């Protein structure tokens, strides 16, 4: 990676905090964002992750000042910015389609924000040169956007957004239009620049892998609400809701009934035919219906029946890279996916019963929770 001479602009500024406080947005009678609160630390990258229509882009547009909220506040470094129009918020934004000005050269695009702030003359040229060098596009300054590749266009968009030294950087699905290999490169590049500048950044995406790899924390959104706001590892391993559970990674859902709750351990009888002792979440009482969520890699196969295993009927097995994905069906009819390391190819006899792996961290959700997608 090329070393950049440190200049006043490139010394990482102290990032700003960004607080979203009980924000609500309505379009007519529809609620697009429903009482969302997020506290984002200086220099942090937060991904807003969710299916389309979940309100993540609307939330981003409220922060940028393009959309007015019905209620709630947005604060930067503790000060409300809700009264400011978009052009006074000092927020950098990169759109999914980059929104480069098609009639301006690369250099003119980058200079647009500087000129809008009243900068003139050589200072503008120097700043543009520095920004283009930063995104390694110095040689392209006289090109028009449509003469650039997708990745180059994105870097211009990034340089344009960063040229005005924004206090917050907003990325609206910035990698969605790039092909797979380029996407990874650009994710690394954006992360590098963000680190270098210490910018508080919000990334809107519907791609969980992207959120996992780029973000420090992820806010999983559904129907205008934040379902869980946590680190990628916590989101994956300890989903708080069935929705998060279903949206992140793949999971098996096994219906059952709580037989007893003792201190913080619940005894659950699965319909599939096993009785398990599991850590009990709050609000679970004896007699309530529950759903047990287990990741495919947290299930193991065994040839013998125990109290804590249940019989299955094996289906197709698919070798997937270093792993083997096995489809199976429990006696209650529930479809299961089980992932095992490839080196331990199970024989037909070994595929009779299924149980939790010793290190499994299954999640228990009350049945009344809105059912998971998929």
């Amino acid at each position, binding site marked *: 990676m090329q070393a950049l001479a440190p200049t006043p602009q490139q010394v990482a500024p102290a990032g700003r905090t960004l607080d979203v406080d009980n924000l609500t947005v309505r379009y007519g009678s529809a609620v697009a964002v429903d009482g969302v609160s997020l506290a984002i630390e200086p220099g942090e990258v937060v991904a807003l992750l969710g299916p389309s229509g979940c309100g993540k882009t609307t939330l981003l547009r409220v922060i940028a000042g393009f959309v007015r909220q019905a209620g709630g506040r947005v604060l930067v470094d503790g000060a409300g910015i809700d009264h400011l129009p978009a*052009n006074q918020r000092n927020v950098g934004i990169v759109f999914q389609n980059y*929104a480069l*000005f*098609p009639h*301006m050269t690369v250099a003119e695009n980058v200079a647009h924000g500087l000129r*809008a702030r009243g900068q003139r003359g050589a200072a503008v040229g120097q700043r543009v040169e520095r920004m283009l060098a930063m995104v390694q596009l110095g040689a392209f300054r006289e090109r028009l956007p449509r003469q650039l590749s997708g990745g180059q266009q994105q870097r211009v968009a990034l340089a344009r957004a960063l040229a005005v030294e924004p206090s917050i950087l907003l990325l609206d699905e910035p990698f969605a239009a790039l092909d797979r290999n380029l996407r990874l490169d650009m994710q690394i590049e954006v992360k590098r620049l963000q680190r270098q500048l210490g910018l508080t950044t919000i990334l809107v995406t519907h791609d969980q892998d992207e959120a996992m790899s780029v973000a420090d924390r992820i806010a999983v959104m559904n129907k205008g609400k934040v379902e869980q706001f946590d680190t990628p590892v916590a989101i994956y391993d300890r989903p708080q809701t069935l929705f998060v559970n279903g949206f992140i990674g793949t999971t098996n859902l096994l219906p059952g009934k709580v037989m007893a709750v003792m201190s913080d351990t619940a005894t659950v009888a699965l319909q599939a035919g096993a009785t398990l002792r599991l850590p009990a979440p709050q609000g679970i009482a004896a007699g309530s219906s529950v759903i047990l969520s287990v990741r495919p890699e947290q299930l193991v196969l065994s040839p013998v029946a125990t109290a804590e295993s249940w019989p299955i009927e094996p289906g197709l097995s698919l070798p997937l890279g270093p792993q083997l994905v096995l489809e199976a069906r429990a006696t209650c009819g529930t479809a299961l996916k089980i992932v095992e390391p490839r080196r331990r190819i199970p024989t037909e006899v070994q595929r009779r019963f299924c149980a939790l792996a010793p290190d499994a961290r299954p999640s228990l959700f009350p049945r009344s929770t809105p059912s998971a997608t998929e």
Partner: protein
Amino acid sequence: MSVASDLIDRPREEGRLRLAEWQLALPLSLAFAALFLAPLLLLGATSFFNDEKITQPGFASWTKFFGDPFNYKVILDTLLLGLKTVCATVVIGYPVALVYIDLPARLQKVLIFIIVMPMLLSVVVRTFAWIVVLGREGVVNQLLLWLGVISEPLRLLQTELGLVISLTQIEMPLMLLPLISVMSRLDPNLRDASAALGASRWRTLFTVIVPLSMPGLVAGCLLVFASSTTAFISQTVIGGVRLIYLPLVIWQQSLVVYNWPLAAVASLSLVVSVLSVIAALSYLGRRSSRHLHG
């Protein structure tokens, strides 16, 4: 991303399609040659006769027409009328187009209907409606008198002001349709991007929206100019015959005094002068939208 409009100019990269496109255009080209070019040649030939009976070839009609300074004034007035109408339609039409792109889809349909509706009426009807509006006892004067703004009816009919006002309304669809078709294809993110970079609404308008809507604006200007300079009915009925424009001269020469050679000279003067302004406009338009078409 291509925001480029193909109203003025088409991208030239599509070489592979050329032959097929050329063949598809053949019937229209032939019809054009037969119905447009041939009469134009006939018109040209007619102009080179000296007498009304079209028997003596010569340049007398040309020297007579261009030997009279009055006719230069008529040509100039005709072009000025076109330019004034173009300016008025731009000043009024551009904000309407800006409003249009911000409206929800349902209201956009309503607005398009309102814009197109006048085109469903014959120009004669629209013209006579303006007599009712602008007349001495018309709506405008009645209102101003009632409000006490004026004590005597204003003279609006038979003035160039009244004519430009009417033509502005009559020609407005020709400005708005190309303008809206180009502007509604503009990426709305461009305005947001510009605002987020700190640009005020006016700066965004003049540095982003106006340059990108240039193809539609130029197309609208061309249509309005060509249409208003040749709007014989509106010019004579609303403007009266004290305001003399080329179409009136052509009508008088061809259908009142039957001097067809002179009428042909006047017609060709109209065609050439209007086309020169149009060529100049579209050259400017092409230059300003060069980045879009390359």
